[in-house]
């Protein structure tokens, strides 16, 4: 998928002006976060915090010897009849999938949610090579009909309201328009059923790769994952190399924290551990199972100061708790991954110079950090990326000059005090009687949507010095100034 992240500001502006989207975002904004809070309380707040620590430690243990665990996974998977392929780039993912389609003569793919396939723009590649690709996760199905990209990693159509979905279904299904959720869901189910039964390729992601058993673990809520991994002749699971974890025991811990953090569920409706293709005597399962292990930028994180990002288990909690995401929605971010995790991943995977706004477009409020089930210090990582931009001279000269001047003055107390005094008086004068500045030169970003409360006039330190002076010498000038006489 081609990144539009360099246009974040313009895209965010459009999102802010989109009244319908703003309404949808407002309704969504606290839903998942509230559900997570309830699930956390039900688990026990302290116990849940311990669980987060355990989950983070498990992820680190896997990642510290990533190469070894991946080789272990490969050996075990192959032992169970799975073919393992490695893709260094998005291009290689497409090449692998298309080659497999040619080799097995595959014509129709059903897909369960896979964000890595979005990285590779896989649907477009399949379609242009004569393979029909049908998204079967309800949200993904909706945005496929709308020819849009996901706006959230676990709720891809969260930006659409019922009316928009009703319009889409009416246009594509040739049935009477309905705005009843149950009717809409039943309609999608009926349409998808036909695709499930006629597809010869199942494409899935993988929530975790279990090294000791060579298994792919999948969590879904709609059951489509089961259909995708069992009905077609061939199943391809595509997932990032960082998803490998050492043991099944680790999986049980991570699967306590994942659904609670994502949707506030204790457990997902469907939880599958897929280990190899159909064996002799099995009643179902594909004839061939292939796992594609994807790098596409991930090894750049290994051992780097951003390595904690590799712990990510794609639960979406960071965006569910992000006030910026709630304000502009996922499409503003311009690539596959939105919200705080996307603002770290996009510059790393797609090039820091192609996503200059993303690390800056955060208030560093920390809500993502405290919600993250594997304790990724997202604000610190965003700050690290800001530092890289600075070091690589990717910030505008005006910003750099501004900081240089400020830092020069702040290290020289007398100069700083003088500048502060002059500035405070000037701004106080600009604020007039109301004490509000409605247009600030060089501060248009602030005053376009807000007033700037004006300073009181004198700086604290000059008043404090005057007060001390008055106490010692009984300065006449200060008599009657109640605000100065403590």
């Amino acid at each position: 998928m081609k990144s539009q992240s360099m246009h974040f500001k313009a895209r965010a502006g459009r999102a802010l002006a989109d009244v319908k989207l703003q309404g949808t975002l407002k309704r969504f904004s606290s839903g998942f976060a509230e559900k997570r809070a309830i699930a956390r309380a039900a688990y026990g707040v302290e116990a849940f915090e311990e669980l987060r620590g355990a989950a983070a430690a498990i992820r680190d243990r896997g990642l510290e010897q990533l190469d070894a665990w991946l080789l272990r996974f490969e050996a075990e998977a192959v032992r169970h009849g799975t073919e393992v392929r490695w893709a260094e780039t998005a291009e290689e993912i497409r090449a692998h999938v298309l080659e497999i389609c040619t080799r097995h003569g595959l014509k129709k793919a059903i897909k369960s949610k896979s964000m890595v396939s979005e990285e590779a723009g896989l649907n477009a590649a399949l379609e242009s090579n004569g393979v029909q690709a049908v998204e079967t996760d309800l949200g993904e199905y909706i945005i496929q009909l709308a020819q849009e990209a996901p706006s959230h990693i676990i709720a891809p159509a969260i930006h659409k309201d019922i009316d928009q979905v009703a319009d889409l279904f009416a246009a594509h299904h040739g049935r009477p328009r309905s705005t009843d959720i149950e009717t809409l869901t039943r309609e999608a189910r009926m349409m998808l059923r036909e695709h499930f039964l006629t597809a010869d390729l199942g494409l899935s992601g993988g929530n975790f790769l279990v090294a000791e058993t060579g298994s792919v673990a999948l969590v879904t809520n709609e059951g489509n994952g089961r259909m995708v991994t069992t009905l077609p002749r061939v199943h391809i699971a595509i997932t990032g190399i960082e998803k490998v974890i050492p043991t099944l025991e680790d999986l049980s811990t991570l699967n306590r924290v994942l659904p609670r953090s994502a949707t506030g569920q204790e457990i997902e409706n469907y939880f599958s551990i897929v280990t190899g293709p159909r064996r002799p005597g099995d009643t179902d399962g594909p004839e061939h199972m292939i796992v594609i292990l994807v790098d596409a930028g991930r090894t750049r994180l290994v051992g780097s100061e951003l390595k904690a990002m590799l712990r990510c288990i794609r639960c979406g909690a960071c965006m569910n708790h992000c006030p910026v995401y709630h304000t502009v929605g996922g499409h503003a971010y311009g690539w596959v991954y939105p919200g705080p995790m996307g603002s770290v991943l996009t510059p790393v995977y797609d090039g820091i110079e192609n996503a200059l706004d993303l690390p800056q477009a955060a208030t560093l409020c920390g809500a993502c950090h405290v919600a993250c089930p594997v304790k990724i210090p997202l604000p610190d990582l965003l700050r690290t990326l800001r530092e890289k931009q600075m070091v690589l001279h990717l910030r505008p000269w005006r910003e750099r000059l501004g900081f240089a001047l400020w830092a020069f003055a702040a290290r020289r107390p007398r100069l700083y005090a003088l500048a502060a005094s002059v500035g405070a008086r000037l701004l106080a004068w600009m604020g007039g009687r109301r004490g509000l500045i409605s247009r600030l030169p060089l501060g248009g970003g602030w005053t376009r949507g807000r007033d700037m409360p004006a300073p009181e006039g004198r700086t604290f330190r000059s008043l404090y010095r005057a007060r001390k002076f008055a106490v010692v010498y009984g300065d006449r000038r200060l008599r009657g100034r109640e605000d100065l006489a403590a």
Partner: protein
Amino acid sequence: MRVGLLVTCLVDVMRPRIGFAALTLLESAGCEVHVPSSQTCCGQPGWNSGERGSARALAEKLIEEFEAFDYVVAPSGSCAGMVKTHYRELFPGEGAWLERVEGLAAKTWELTDFLVNVARIESVPGDFEGVVTYHDSCAGLREVGVKMQPRALLAKLQGVELREMQDCETCCGFGGTFSIKFGDISAAMADAKCERIAASGAQAVVLGDLGCMLNIEGRLRRRGDERTRVLHIAELLSGRVDA
């Protein structure tokens, strides 16, 4: 005990009265308060913008200015959080500096945290009367753990009724330079905060950080709300609120 008052650059320039309010509170708690006159800024603007060099220089300056005191107190969770949680990241692998940083971090407090957990004050001088709501500033809440402290202090004011707003822990959209770089997003976030404040029915929103204060007040006034007051907790507690 000898307390160094970290005035903070925003209080110094924008709201000196908050500095005096903090001074009053600390003095009435029995502290011997010192205000190092050479202090400027803790370095956070540079740190958050990726300007490590300037942040480091200002951190060294602040450490030298304040490390001799028994305690360092700031009327800001954000500046206290900078000293307590981020200074150590500016001196990686530098043993001697890190020792000084840890020493300073351990004795640096956000004002309400200090009043409740160190000074353990019984009463406050303020006499404000009215319905207020409290906005939890992000750094104070999530870096320093300021949550119950200001509420415990508000409870000591007999005339104050605290009416919590929905999403009181959600960021107001300030975020330092974010508020200028992404002014429209920032203003929209501030607007959501203003709606919550209005819905609480409070006459005043009380908070503990200047950035949020300027942001929320600026948005309230632009929305045409001239009535809802925006007060720093120190003003309210010290009695330095104009009628």
